[in-house]
Structures are given as C-alpha cells and as structure tokens.
C-alpha cells in the first residue's frame, strides 16, 4: 500500500516537474526556444533512462497537452505512442547498452520520428478538411529550427543526467590484505 502511494506520488511529482519546465520554456523564453516541446523530450528521456515502461507519465502528460493544444484530440497521443514503440524496439535490438552517445541517438531518432508522424497527421487532416496546406521553405526552416533546439535540450539533459549519475555513483571500496 505504502509502495503504491509512493509510486503515485513519484509519478505526479515528475509530471509536475515536466509541466513546470515546459511552462517555463513556452511562457518565459524568447523565440525560438518557445518551440521546444519539453514534455515530449521528458517522456522520451524518462522512458530511455528508467526502462520500466511506466506509461502513466506519458498518459498524464499527453492528456494535459492534448487539452491545451490547437490540433485535434489524438494528434499528440498517436505520435507519442508510435515513437515509444520505435524507441522500445531500438533499445532492445540496436543499442542495448546505455551510453552518452546512445541516449543522444535515441533522442535524435525520437524527435525526428515524432515530428514526422505529427506533421503527417496534420497534412492528412488538412487534406480531408479541405484546408489549405502550406509546404514552403519557411515551414521547412521552422521544422529544422524546432528539431535543432530540441536536440540542444536533449544534449543538456544528457549532460546533466551523466553528471548527476557520476556524482551520486556509489564508490567501490576495495580492501586489500
């Protein structure tokens, strides 16, 4: 029972932390940093590091983003689900060992995959609703911008994680004699 309360508490705590940082990015930072989808990056990072497949965090965070998102309901959940699926496959078949570079690679693949599915859904939606769809140099530049700043954030998260990991690593004490 206590373990369940602890677990729920930790899930809610991490959701709160992710939302707070996301709000800080969206509301307080100047363009182009407002384009960072921190919640998604957090979900990816959390899934890579704590490989227990805790789906409560993606569900809660995804739901909140869906409620405050201008795209139709589901356009955030679907890319998150498929990205996590691909990530899980990569984690078990390609990069089974977690290192600084493998996490970076996972991050890059995830952001690209998420954006591709998301944009694909938007294009489909626009086509079926007879909305005008603008695919121009400006949109492409914006897309690259978004991926670029997301990668910077992943890199920072990665560095912070490895710094903390090394700092709190239990030192082995070897007794001789």
């Amino acid at each position: 029972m206590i373990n369940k309360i602890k677990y729920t508490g930790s899930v809610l705590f991490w959701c709160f932390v992710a939302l707070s940082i996301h709000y800080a990015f969206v509301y307080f930072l100047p363009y182009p940093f407002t384009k960072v989808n921190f919640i998604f990056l957090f979900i990816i990072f959390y899934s890579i590091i704590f490989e227990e497949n805790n789906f409560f965090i993606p569900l809660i965070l995804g739901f909140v983003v869906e409620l405050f998102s201008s795209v139709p309901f589901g356009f955030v959940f679907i890319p998150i689900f498929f990205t996590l699926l691909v990530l899980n496959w990569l984690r078990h078949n390609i990069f089974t060992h977690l290192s600084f570079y493998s996490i970076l690679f996972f991050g890059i693949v995830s952001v690209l995959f998420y954006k591709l599915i998301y944009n694909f859904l938007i294009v489909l939606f626009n086509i079926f609703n007879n909305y005008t769809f603008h695919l121009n140099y400006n949109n492409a530049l914006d897309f690259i911008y978004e991926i670029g700043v997301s990668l910077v954030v992943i890199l920072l998260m990665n560095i912070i994680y490895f710094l903390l990991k090394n700092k709190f690593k239990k030192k082995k004490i070897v007794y001789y004699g």
Partner: protein
Amino acid sequence: MLRNNKNKKFLYFGLVIFLLIFFHYVGLIGWLERTVRFITLPLTSKIYEVSVNSQDNIDLILNKEEFLNNYNNLKQENENLKLLKSKNENLKRDNDELKNQLDFKNAYDYKTLTTEILGKNLNGGEQMLIIKKGTLDNISIGDPVVVANGILIGQISKVEKDISYIRLTNDNESRIATMILNESESAGVVEGGYGISLRMKYIPRNEVVMINDDVVTSGVEENVPRGLLVGQVVAIENEAYKPFQQAILSPATDLSKINIVTVLLNYDK
C-alpha cells in the same frame, strides 16, 4: 517472459490511448477534461500574467543596449510631448466627444466579444493563445481577433465548447489578405513564421512602398473586415529578378504582451 510482459504493457498503453481518443470524440470524458481544465486553467492564467509582466525584465537582460536606447528615445519623446500637451488639451475635449460617438463597437456593424487571455498553446511550435470562450459564446473558426481600437492580432483557429485558440499573425500558418496604406493601396498577403516580425508578400513590383507605411486588412478575405491595422513596414525587399516585392512588417502591437482581446463575431460583409 519479460519481453512478453513489456509487449503486453505496450498493448494496454495503445488500448488506453485508443479508448481516450474514442471517448473524447463520443463525448464520454467531457467531465474529465473539464475537471483537468478547471484545475489547470487558473494556474495557466496566472503564469501567463506573470510572463507578460516579466517580459520587460527579460528584454532588459537580453537586449540591454537596445532597451537603454529605447529608454533614452522615450525620454526625449516625453519632453517633446510635454510641449504638445497644452495644445492637445483643447483637442482632447473635442476628441472625447467624438470618441463617445465613434466607439469601435458602434463604428462597425457587427457583434464583438471581449475576453481575457488564459494562456498559450502547450503544443510547442505554434504561436497560439487560449481564451475562455467557445462555441457557447458564438465564436467560430476564422473570426478575427483584435486589441485596442482595431489592431488585428490573429484569427480563431480552433473552437471548443468553452475555450478557443487564437492563431497569432506571427504564426507560420497565418495568412491574411492585406493592403498597404500608400497611394496605390498595394495589396498582398501577410505571413507569419519569421520570429516576432511579419512578411507581406505578393506586392506588385511597380508600386511604391515606403518605410513606416501602415498595413491594414484588405477585406477580401471572408470574415475579416477591411481596415484592421496589422503592422507597419520596416523594410522592403525589391529585387529585379522577382515578379513581386516583399515588405517586412513590425506588428502593430507586441504580440507577447496581450492581456485582453476582442473577437469580432461572425462578421458578414
């Protein structure tokens, strides 16, 4: 065994997402959505308020030199304005009287709805604001949104029962039919997606565009009346090999510091 367990978890995860999406469109989780919004909206609104108020401090940190230059310019302008103040006193009386007669809402023959901004769109990448009015208040997609006495800041892009999303003019999906207030009333399309500035495209090359010319809506577009101020020309790009010239605009109001907006409801030309 372990892998099977994980696959099962993924299956359940997918199923929950599918059910959530299905229940959303059927309307079965409306109560849950309203509850989450009820809890988060006051917080979002407060954060937005703080972010708008702290924008000047952030500007000061990021562009200290520009901020100080602006401050000195304003100081100079303030002295000049003091001289004009006495002359303006008489004009003000006349103006007040005229204002009473020519109130914005009465000047145009359509319904308006004034409301507060609740926050920004959480899904990164788009320049959107959220207002706590929706279809219940007769808001519909495409309705223009203005501030002050007719400065266009965007259009409604998504409406739900009790909230709506405004796509700001600087969003990269925003397109508005406009014209420049010059001699030939040059027509063009204002696009966003260039950070804080806007770009007016498809201006005929032979027409003379000057810096500081005002750009207003042309009224060609459905739902958007003619004459709403969009911005001012700050630079012109007219190259010999291109059929059209372009103008870079500065929005008529700071789009990151908006608190109250007016939606022009179901404008019909």
